[in-house]
C-alpha cells in the first residue's frame, strides 16, 4: 500500500496548481501539491505584463471573448473562451482580496493598461512584476490554509490502472528516494516546455514534464504545433522584455530608424497580435533591415519617471543582461520562443478524456488560446481553470466509489528506469549536448516561418536525437540532489513534446496564428478549422482530429 495518499494530487505549484489546491481544499478535499521547485520559484513568477479582465465600465466580457477568439485565429474553443472571459472579473477581484497589490488609479480603484490584440485597456498589473506578485500572494494563501506541499519532489511517472489515473511516482530530490503518491484525482499543472527550443524566454525548469507524462499514459495532446514566439526577447540570453513596454508606448524600429509596424498592422501598430509582430520583425531582419539579427525597442521617449513606476524590472534586466539602459538607448530585441498554446486536452472543468486525470495552466489545452495567445490571457487561464479543476477534482473525490490505491511496485519500476541512466557509461555524448542540439534544430527548422521541407527534416532529426538519448548516461551517480539525473529525465519529456510539435506542424498545411507556413500562406478553414491531436504509440505520436467549438463568432479574416 502506498504510504502517501490523497483525494487530490496536484503536480505543479505555479499559479494554476496553487489556485487549484486552494479551491479543492475549500471544497473539503484532502489535497497535496507536489513540485520540483519551491512554489515561489515556479515560472509563473516571470510573468511581467499583467492579467486580463473586462472590468471597465466601457468594456464587456463579450468584447474580451471576441478579441480572444480573433487572437486565436478562430482555433480557440468558444465555449471555453466564454467561461474564461465571464469568470475573469470575479477571478481578478478575488486575487485582489487575497492581497495582490494591483496598480491603482487616483480614485483608489484598479487601473489597467492596454495589451496586444485587445480592443480595450483591460490588463491589470503590478508594475512589471505581476506574475511574481500574484504567485507570492497565492503562496501566502497556501500557508494560511495549511496546504501540504511535497517540495522539491520530482514526478517521473503517472500511474494508470484499468484506464484510470491513480496518482504519480516521484523522486525526493534531496534524498533520491522514490515514492508512490496515490490519488483519486491528479491535476497536471506543470507549466510550459519552452526549453525544448534554444534560446527561450522560459526558465530552465520549463521542460514540458506534465504534457509528456500525460501523453505517456494515453491522454490526447492537442495543438502542439502552436508555439508562440514573443516579439521582444533580449538579444543574447533571450530573457523577456514585457509587452508592457510596448503598451506603455514603446516603438519598434528597424536599422533605418523606421517604425516598421506601420507596414504590417497600420491600425494596431506595435500592439498587434504577437504572431503578427513577430513575423513583421523576422521579415525586417531577413530582408536586411535588422541590427545584428535584432530590431530595436525604443522607450526613451517615455521618460525616466514612468519607467521607474511601471517598468523598473525590465530596466534592470536590460542593464544586467545586455548592458543597455533603456532610458538612454533602444534595446535590441528579436522574436523568441515563449509559450505553448497546445497541451493536455481538457474540458472546461480541467477534465481530460482519461478518468482521474485533470490538467490546468500552460500544460493544459482547454483550448482558449487556439493558434495564438493574447498577452495577459495566460495568467487568467491559470487562475480560472485552476480553480475550476480544483472544484471538479474535489467533487470527484466525494463521488468516486470502490477506489483501490495502486501498489508500491510502480516505485520499483521507476527505480529501475533511473538506475539504467546511472549504469550507462558516459560515452562521449552528454544530456546537455543533446538538449542544445535539439533546441538549436527546433529554432532553425520549426520557427516563426515554416516549410514542408524544413518540418520533414525536423521530424528526421528528432529520430537521431531520440536514438542518442536512449544511449546517454549521467555522470553523477549519487543520491543527494542529483540534478544530473533529473536533467536526463527532463530531456526525455522534452523529446516527446518536440516530436509532437514537429509532426503536428507537418500535418497542418495552412497558416493560422503562430503557425506560419510559407508554402501555405493562407488560412484554410475548409480543411483545417480543427485541432490536431497526438496520442502515444511506441512508434511515435499518432495523429487524429478534434472539432473546434464555435458558439457565436463565425470565422472572419483576421486584420489588425
Amino acid at each position, binding site marked *: 500500500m502506498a504510504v502517501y495518499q490523497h483525494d487530490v494530487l496536484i503536480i505543479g505549484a505555479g499559479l494554476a496548481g496553487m489556485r487549484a489546491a486552494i479551491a479543492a481544499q475549500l471544497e473539503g478535499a484532502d489535497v497535496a501539491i507536489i513540485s520540483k*521547485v519551491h512554489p515561489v520559484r515556479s515560472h509563473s513568477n516571470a510573468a511581467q505584463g499583467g492579467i486580463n479582465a473586462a472590468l471597465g465600465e466601457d468594456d464587456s466580457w463579450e468584447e474580451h471573448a471576441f478579441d480572444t477568439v480573433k487572437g486565436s485565429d478562430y482555433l480557440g474553443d468558444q465555449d471555453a473562451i466564454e467561461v474564461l472571459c465571464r469568470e475573469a472579473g470575479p477571478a481578478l477581484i478575488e486575487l485582489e482580496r*487575497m492581497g495582490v*497589490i494591483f496598480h491603482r488609479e487616483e480614485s483608489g480603484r484598479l487601473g489597467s493598461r492596454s495589451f496586444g490584440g485587445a480592443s480595450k485597456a483591460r490588463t491589470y498589473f503590478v508594475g512589471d512584476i505581476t506574475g*511574481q*506578485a500574484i504567485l*507570492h500572494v497565492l503562496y501566502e494563501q497556501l500557508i494560511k490554509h495549511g496546504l501540504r506541499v511535497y517540495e522539491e519532489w520530482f514526478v517521473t511517472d503517472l500511474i494508470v490502472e484499468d484506464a484510470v489515473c491513480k496518482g504519480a511516482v516521484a523522486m525526493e530530490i534531496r534524498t533520491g528516494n522514490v515514492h508512490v503518491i496515490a490519488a483519486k484525482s491528479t491535476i497536471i499543472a506543470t507549466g510550459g516546455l519552452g526549453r525544448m527550443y534554444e534560446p527561450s524566454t522560459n526558465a530552465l525548469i520549463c521542460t514540458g514534464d506534465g504534457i509528456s507524462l500525460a501523453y505517456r499514459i494515453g491522454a490526447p495532446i492537442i495543438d502542439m504545433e502552436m508555439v508562440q514566439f514573443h516579439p521582444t526577447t533580449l538579444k543574447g*540570453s533571450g*530573457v523577456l522584455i514585457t509587452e508592457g513596454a510596448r503598451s506603455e508606448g514603446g516603438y519598434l524600429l528597424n536599422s533605418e530608424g523606421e517604425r516598421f509596424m506601420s507596414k504590417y498592422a497600420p491600425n494596431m501598430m506595435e500592439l498587434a497580435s504577437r504572431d503578427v509582430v513577430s513575423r513583421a520583425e523576422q521579415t525586417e531582419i531577413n530582408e536586411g533591415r535588422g541590427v545584428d539579427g535584432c530590431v530595436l525597442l525604443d522607450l526613451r521617449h517615455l521618460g525616466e519617471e514612468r519607467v521607474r513606476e511601471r517598468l523598473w524590472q525590465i530596466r534592470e534586466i536590460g542593464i544586467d543582461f545586455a548592458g543597455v539602459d533603456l532610458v538612454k538607448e533602444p534595446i535590441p530585441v528579436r522574436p523568441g520562443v515563449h509559450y505553448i498554446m497546445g497541451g493536455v486536452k481538457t474540458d472546461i472543468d480541467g477534465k481530460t478524456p482519461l478518468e482521474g486525470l485533470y490538467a490546468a495552466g500552460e500544460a493544459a489545452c482547454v483550448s482558449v488560446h487556439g493558434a495564438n495567445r493574447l498577452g495577459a490571457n495566460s495568467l487568467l487561464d491559470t487562475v480560472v481553470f485552476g480553480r475550476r479543476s480544483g472544484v471538479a477534482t474535489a467533487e470527484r473525490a466525494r463521488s468516486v466509489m470502490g477506489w483501490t490505491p495502486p501498489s508500491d511496485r510502480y516505485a520499483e519500476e521507476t527505480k529501475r528506469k533511473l538506475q539504467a541512466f546511472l549504469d550507462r557509461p558516459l560515452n562521449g555524448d552528454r544530456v546537455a549536448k543533446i538538449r542544445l542540439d535539439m533546441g538549436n534544430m527546433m529554432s532553425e527548422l520549426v520557427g516563426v516561418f515554416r516549410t514542408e521541407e524544413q518540418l520533414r527534416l525536423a521530424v528526421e532529426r528528432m529520430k537521431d536525437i531520440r536514438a542518442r538519448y536512449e544511449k546517454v548516461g549521467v555522470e553523477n551517480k549519487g*543520491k*543527494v540532489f542529483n540534478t544530473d539525473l533529473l536533467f536526463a529525465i527532463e530531456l526525455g519529456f522534452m523529446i516527446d513534446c518536440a516530436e509532437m510539435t514537429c509532426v503536428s506542424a507537418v500535418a497542418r498545411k495552412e497558416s493560422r496564428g503562430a503557425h506560419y507556413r510559407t508554402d501555405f500562406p493562407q488560412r484554410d478553414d475548409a480543411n483545417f478549422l480543427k485541432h490536431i491531436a497526438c496520442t502515444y504509440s511506441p512508434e511515435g505520436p499518432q495523429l487524429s482530429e478534434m472539432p473546434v467549438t464555435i458558439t457565436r463568432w463565425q470565422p472572419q479574416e483576421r486584420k489588425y
Partner: protein
Amino acid sequence: MEVKLKVLRYDPESGKEPEYRRYTVDMPESATVLDSLIEVREFHDGTLSLRCSCRSAICGSCAMRINGRARLACKTQVSSVAEDGEEIVVEPAGNMPTIKDLVVDMAPFWDKIRAVKPWLQPSGPPPEREYLAPPQAMIELAEVMNCIMCGACVSDCTVLEVDKSFLAPAALAKAWRFVHDPRDGNTAARLRELSEPSGIWDCTRCNFCVQVCPKDVKPMDQIMKLRAEATAIGITNNAGSRHTFAFTSTVKEGGRLNEFQMLPRTHGLLNIAANLAELPGGIRMIRAGKMPSPFTHKIPGAAHVKRIFKRFEHAKV
C-alpha cells in the same frame, strides 16, 4: 574569455569535509557567474549541484556567496567580480545548513516567513468589488513585494550568525508588507508580536541585508519603519524599545549617554534575572575601562541638549 572558478564542494554521501575544487571554462564576455557554473555542470563536472531556474533574477533560486558575499549568481556578471580574470570564489549561502555543494537547506528561512503570518488579514466583510486603496500606498508596497525570497540577506545577516532565533531580514521585510497594507486589519497585533524577543528590536543595524539584497528591498529600512510604527502606537513594553527610550532619556537628562542606567531601564529595575544575566558583560566592560562611573556628571552643554530635544518634540506635534 577564460573564467576561473574555485567552488566549495560538499557531498554528504562521501563522508568527506567540504573542499574547494577549481574549474576553468571558456565563456562569452557577457557571461554571468551562473552561466559559468552551468557550463561546468553540463560539460565538465556533472556532479556539481546548485539551484537555478529563471536566469533573470526573479525566481530567487541562485543566491550563493561569491567572493565572500551573498549574491544571485545569475545577476552577477563575471566581469564585475573578476575584472582581470582573477579566480572567483563560489560558496553556498551562509546561515543555512548545506545539503550538497551550493544547495542549502532553506527550511529555517521558510519557517520564519510562516512565523510572521504572511497573509492579508482584513477586518470586516469584504467590499462588493476591490478594496479601494491609495495608488501611492500600493507603489510603496511594491518595494517590498519585489522580494524574491532568495535568502541573500539571511545568508549575510550578522545577528543571525550568533542567534538562530532571530526572525531575520526577509521575514521582517515581509511583515512590513502587511503592516503597511491599508487593507490589513491586524496591524496592532502584528506589531505586538514583532516586538517580542527575536523580532524587530534584535537587529543591530549592520546594514548588510541592504547591501546584499539583489532586488533593493532594503530589509533593514523596513525593520526601522516597523520599530517606528510599533512605538507610535504605544508598543513600548519590551526590551528593545525600552532600550531606545532609555538611550534618549538619559541623553536628554544629562546631555550624554549614561550606560550604567541603560540596563535597569531596559529590563526594568525589578527584573533582577535579566539584569544579572547581563552582569558578566557589564563587569567585563568595567574591567576594560569602558564603563563610565555610575555617577556621571552632566556635560557642560546639557541644557542645550535639552533644548534640542524640546524643539524636536515640539516640531513633531
